């Protein structure tokens, strides 16, 4: 086991290949679940769990899974963990479950777990897949939380449900709606590209 490579596989998801901004993948929850910081963080952590577990399992099973039906097998693995997440949030984090709604079951068809399974876990050993899944998941969580931070701060005047703006502040509530989500995402993509291109 190569520690240097392990660190590399973990950190690439945090900046260099951060999923929604570099690959523009998994946009559906990025747009829909970022109205508040708690939603963004919750969605990100759900996905991190599913991604890490599915990466590990698919990596373990990579020699058994026949090539012809690999996508179906990946989906079955991902769906298993999504159901676990759904039941756990329903039991222990009910407000989060209610506010994320359909987007928790929709993690099954999110591009990121499937993409990492296909591109990474089915070709690499368990420990690297674990690092990759964890890094990608945390990167995704970071992106969602930062996007949600701006949308909640300017669109609602709150952070994590607490009022932080001055008392006369009237929020720019279009940021809470669908057009605001696209505008915010576009601006962040632009800034990320700008920062990336200067290297």
């Amino acid at each position: 086991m190569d520690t240097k490579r392990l660190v590399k596989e973990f950190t690439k998801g945090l900046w260099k290949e951060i999923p929604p901004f570099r690959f523009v993948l998994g946009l559906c929850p990025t747009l829909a679940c970022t109205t508040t910081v708690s939603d963004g963080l919750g969605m990100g952590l759900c996905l991190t769990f599913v991604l890490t577990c599915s990466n590990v399992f698919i990596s373990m099973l990579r020699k058994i899974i026949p090539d012809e039906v690999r996508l179906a097998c990946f989906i079955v693995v991902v769906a298993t963990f999504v159901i676990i997440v759904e039941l756990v949030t329903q039991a222990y984090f009910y407000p989060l479950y209610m506010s994320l709604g359909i987007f928790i079951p929709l993690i099954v068809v999110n591009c990121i777990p499937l993409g990492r399974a296909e591109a990474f876990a089915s070709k690499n050993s368990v420990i690297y897949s674990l690092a990759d899944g964890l890094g990608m998941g945390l990167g995704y969580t970071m992106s969602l939380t930062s996007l949600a931070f701006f949308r909640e701060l300017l669109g609602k005047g709150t952070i994590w449900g607490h009022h932080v703006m001055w008392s006369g502040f009237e929020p720019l509530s279009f940021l809470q709606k669908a057009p605001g989500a696209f505008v915010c995402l576009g601006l962040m993509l632009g800034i990320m590209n700008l920062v990336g291109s200067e290297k």
Partner: protein
Amino acid sequence: MKDKGFVVSVGPHIQGRESIPRIVYGVVIAILPAIIAGVYFFKMEAVKVIVAALVSAIVFDALLQKLICKKVDLTNGHALLMGLLFATIMPIGVPWWAVAAGVFVGLLVGEYVYGGFGNNPFNPVIVGWAALKLSYPGYLSVASSVLGVLKLEGISAIVEDYGYFSDAYGVENWSTLGGKLKLLGKILLGWKAGAWGDHLFGCVGCICALAILIGAAFLFIKRYISWYAPVGFLATILFFSLVFYKGDKQYLYPFVLIQLFSGSTLLAAFFFVTDFATTPFTGLGMFIFGVMAGLVTMLGRLWGKWVDPVWFAILVANAFTPLIDRFVRPKPFGRVKSSV
């Protein structure tokens, strides 16, 4: 060669004095009558909005130019035009910080993310307006303007309950040509205070149709705008308001007049449907663009839930501009049909 004063150069050899800053300042002059009328009708209410829009447009324009690493250049008058146009489509009573936020969103999202002045696919003024409309529907509501009353209470309420047209030019007089002209003149001059009870309401630049027409005439004389887009736009509105009018027959005339000469319609027709950067290049393309904007406007006004969807209609039509330009191409000069 040089000694004898010969200059060897490629064409064009005859150049006009027009330049982009000159045209921008021309449009600024053209919008001034509407602004002055707004100040005349609304007094301080309008001044507040105009000052807020102007100051924020100049400040944010300079800031954003700095931010995208361009040389800060405010001499082309673009910030001035942005501020004035933005102020014209703001209803009175919008707080200054909302105006500033709208100008900022309009400049940033509508213009500078695409590379600045002239590169924008959507009209930045309307992008800023749309952001405000979605954020503060209360401030941006035009429900108590003439179009709002028309939409919510109907034309008969305007004539009968408010008695606005009937004081000197009663229903019986509209049948004659003179009465028709008088009514037209009254609508052109603007909505005086007391029209709807004591309160006068509307957008800063939309209150006096005549002032907008004066500005438009200036633009036509200087040939900064062509007739294709405004004609397509106004003809569509005229067609829809004539054909799909559902109310009392005798009120058809004021209904059509309000649809055509309410300020936002004219302002859109001469200042927004004719914008250079966001509309098609060819005459036919401009006409199609105008028809499209008029169509969406009238669909919204007659059957939709928005009081005055004209700005959204222009955004929708803006989105079709590249498509129109793709299909409506000018015929290359001197080209003949190839005969085999």
